[in-house]
């Protein structure tokens, strides 16, 4: 892997927003997720079409990979806070928008706070939160 393949701490611009492509959440996603995690959906007052809340969050991380451009050089996912605002149902099509809120350089890499909103096909924010990531600095040799 070469330095050019990754987006480093120095490359991130505070306030810059990226929108991912969209994906339709299917019964197949739910079946795989429940089988993998044993996390049965228990929300939505018995509405079987409501998917486990953590599933759209997990999918939003993968959607980030499909934004054009080099992937972020993440050293570690440090933590996050997240709110589930509206249920996501089977058949809904979701996408996410991420914005770099703050960045703080450390000795090894830098701490980046990313704001992320997950939208459905009606433009409603279904889930929203802030993620804290440790991102690598550009290696000196390639600067």
């Amino acid at each position, binding site marked *: 892997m070469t330095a050019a393949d990754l987006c480093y701490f120095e490359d991130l611009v505070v306030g810059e927003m990226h929108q991912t492509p969209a994906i339709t959440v299917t019964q197949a996603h739910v079946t*795989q997720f429940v089988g*993998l995690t044993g*996390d049965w959906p228990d*929300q939505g007052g018995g509405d079987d079409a409501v998917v486990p809340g953590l599933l759209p969050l997990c999918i939003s*991380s*993968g959607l980030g990979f499909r934004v054009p451009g080099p*992937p972020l050089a993440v050293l570690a996912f440090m933590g996050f806070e997240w*709110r*589930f605002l509206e249920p996501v149902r089977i058949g809904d099509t979701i996408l996410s928008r991420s914005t770099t809120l703050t960045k703080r350089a450390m000795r090894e890499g830098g701490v980046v706070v990313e704001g992320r909103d997950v939208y459905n096909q009606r433009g409603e924010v279904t889930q929203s939160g802030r993620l804290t990531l440790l991102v690598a600095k550009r290696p000196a040799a390639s600067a």
Partner: protein
Amino acid sequence: MRAHAILPAMTGDQRRHFEDIQVGEEYESPGRTVTEADIVIFAGLSGDYNVLHTDAEFMKSSIFGERIAHGLLGLSIQSGLLTRGMRPYATIAFLGLRWKFKGPIKIGDTIRVRAKVAGKKETGKPDRGIVTLFRQVLNQRGEVVQEGETDVMVARRP
């Protein structure tokens, strides 16, 4: 399987309601060994193919020395694990969480969840309330690899 996991199905709705739940109650899940297959399936399901989780050669030179599980995989597994360590709540909605990833989960690690009711809060609606659980995910050495708080909306008895 423990008796309390079987009995509720035979005796109707045994979900616990807001007024049944006491601050300070503790729960503990069984353990589960996180495998390479779990990570591969999660990468495919989520689309998160970050090298941290998928490139064994690249990770040899990382601070972890090998591939690690996605943080969100650990979070999702603990959610399922804890349902096996407690009677279900009469949950209306999962409201949110605050979560820290404190250490890596590596292939072959066995994790379990310890949880405690950290707080109960009334809401504007009299038929429900918010329960906050403090959860810790521990590995086979007893190290806390993830921890945080989850908020769920729970119904009162009808």
